[in-house]
């Protein structure tokens, strides 16, 4: 009966209900978009790892970010291949260079040199060009999303990278890292020339283990056999790369603050709505007290109203979030909204609505039931 009272009273005052809903919807949308942007952005920080088709990454001990590689000896590759459980291993090069632009300028690029005959390290999704693009003479793959930075290189176009001739033999879509520097995929041998990296060095060794192999055990064995090397699972290295940006840039704090702000605005709007509804109904609350309703029961009414606002607001908020995500999501600013994020936002908003009850509840506690007798 109290829930019925709560919901009917809430629905009767549509103006205030809408004001409260706006607060909840605002909070839900902001939390989801901020969270989605955050997840999308930090996802970019580990893009090379996540899409590498490898489950073990080996680099110099103390490696902390996939984009900032330190050279390691390529000869380690042979020792890695001899470790039990290793099905496939390839060396890759990750190094910075510059591409000449038709407009006579230069643009920094992150050259990723991989074995064209292996899937390891192929983090791109080819949209234009042959699957053997990296095997073609001078062949490189650029991403269509970097067209504005690279002056829209067309398939077959010749450019210069690091003073060397390259040909655009493939174009991918959506391979964008955390850095503003575009990724450029090529063969490892060509990458040496484009980045002036000594041919006996590489940046990482990528490993695909046997299905039955224990990844952790393989890493331990590699670390034991190669002093100075650091072998970690791909998931672990992705985590290390994400943490690097979170801790060094304060990214988490920035997005967290914006999310908190959204929740605060929602809190104030829902609290204000409920408070105004209580003020409008002082006589009714006094009457309820007069006929024997306890403060706990009146709190139940308030909570019912607050949770009603939360339920409707979360539903509409998630719908609006979905629409905005479709409209705004792009490889440059990906919005990754997972079910866990939606659940978290709903829980936070629910908590916010429960807290918003506090002020109106204090007002209700002060209501003298005797005012029900005042005409």
């Amino acid at each position, binding site marked *: *009966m*109290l829930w*019925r*009272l709560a919901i*009917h*009273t*809430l*629905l*009767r*005052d549509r103006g205030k209900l809408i004001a409260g809903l706006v607060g909840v919807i605002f909070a839900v949308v902001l939390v989801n978009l901020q969270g989605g942007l955050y997840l999308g952005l930090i996802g970019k920080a580990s893009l090379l790892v996540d899409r590498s088709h490898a489950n073990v990454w080996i680099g110099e001990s103390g490696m902390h970010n996939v984009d900032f590689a330190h050279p390691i000896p390529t000869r380690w590759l042979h020792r890695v291949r001899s470790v039990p459980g290793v099905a496939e291993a390839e060396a890759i090069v990750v190094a910075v260079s510059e591409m000449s632009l038709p407009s006579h300028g230069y643009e920094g690029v992150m050259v990723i040199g991989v074995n064209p005959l292996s899937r390891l390290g192929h983090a791109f999704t080819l949209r234009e060009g042959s699957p053997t693009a990296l095997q073609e003479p001078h062949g490189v793959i650029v991403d269509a999303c970097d067209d504005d930075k690279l002056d829209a290189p067309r398939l077959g176009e010749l450019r210069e990278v690091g003073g060397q001739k390259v040909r655009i033999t493939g174009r991918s879509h959506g391979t964008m890292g955390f850095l503003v520097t575009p990724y450029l995929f090529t063969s490892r041998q060509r990458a040496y020339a484009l980045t002036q990296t000594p041919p006996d060095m590489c940046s990482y060794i990528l490993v695909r283990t046997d299905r039955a192999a224990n990844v952790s055990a393989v890493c331990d064995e590699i670390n034991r056999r190669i002093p100075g090397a650091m072998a970690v699972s791909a998931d672990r290295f992705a985590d290390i790369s994400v943490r690097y940006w979170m801790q060094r840039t304060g990214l988490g704090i920035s997005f967290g603050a914006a999310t908190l702000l959204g929740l605060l605005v929602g809190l104030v709007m829902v609290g204000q709505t409920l408070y105004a509804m209580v003020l409008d109904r002082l*006589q*009714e609350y*006094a*009457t*309820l*007290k*007069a*006929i*024997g*309703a*306890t*403060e706990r*029961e009146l709190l139940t009414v308030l909570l019912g109203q607050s949770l009603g606002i939360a339920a409707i607001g979360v539903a509409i908020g998630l719908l609006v979030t979905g629409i905005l995500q479709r409209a705004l999501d792009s490889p440059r600013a990906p919005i990754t909204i997972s079910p866990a994020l939606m659940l978290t936002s709903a829980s936070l908003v629910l908590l916010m609505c429960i807290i918003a009850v506090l002020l109106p509840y204090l007002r209700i506690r002060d209501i*003298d*039931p*005797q005012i*029900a*007798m005042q*005409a």
Partner: protein
Amino acid sequence: MEVPSLFTDQPLATAQLSPPFGIAMPAAVPPVLRTEGVWKGFFSGSQRREVLRGIDFQIRPGELVFLSGPSGSGKSTLLAILGCLLTPDRGRLWINGRDADRLTIAERAEIRRRDIGFVFQRFQLIQGLSALDNVALPLGLLGHSPSDARRRAADLLTQLGLGDHCQLRPTQLSPGQCQRVALGRAVIAKPSILLADEPTAALDAVNGREIMNLLRDCVKRTNVAAVIVTHDPRIEAFADRICRLEDGIIVP
């Protein structure tokens, strides 16, 4: 004029009602409500004014007692004390034999919920609820299931002549209908005490008489003790006993 009879199928004719005065309750029946030497005062600025000055009052089950008197004589204050809405500064109050002087807020709420039904001058119905839910509300507070509470409320509203108005909200009802709904809310939980504050003040003569008929019918059939604050001389004939207050004292 015939009006529906509460808790029975038989209509109750106004002419059949008992005479308003002279109903003597058996002395053996203990009072359901009793005060002894109740004082209550309020500050008006820095000036303290004693509104009630040593009130001794009691009412037995089945009695319909009017509190009358001029404005400011303390009728409503006494009613609020009898209804556990106010606490006396001095004196004692017993409700169903229980000393109600030193109860906590929660205990007073419990007494109001179980033992007392209120009818207010301005009805004080919950605007967001239908007539049915307004009447069912006290049963909900007492822990009845919503379906049971609403079924009983529907039966009572039918007895009150509002069977076709169950789903209407207070704004869709006339003042007379609102007061009948308010009466239904007051009696549905079968309280032992019914307190009404100027129940006919907002009604015209016809509706006022109808409400008083229903009230009196309820008192006589359910044995509830009813205290009604009024200064409406048109309804004095319904009272078993009239207590007149002047300057905070019950005058003979």
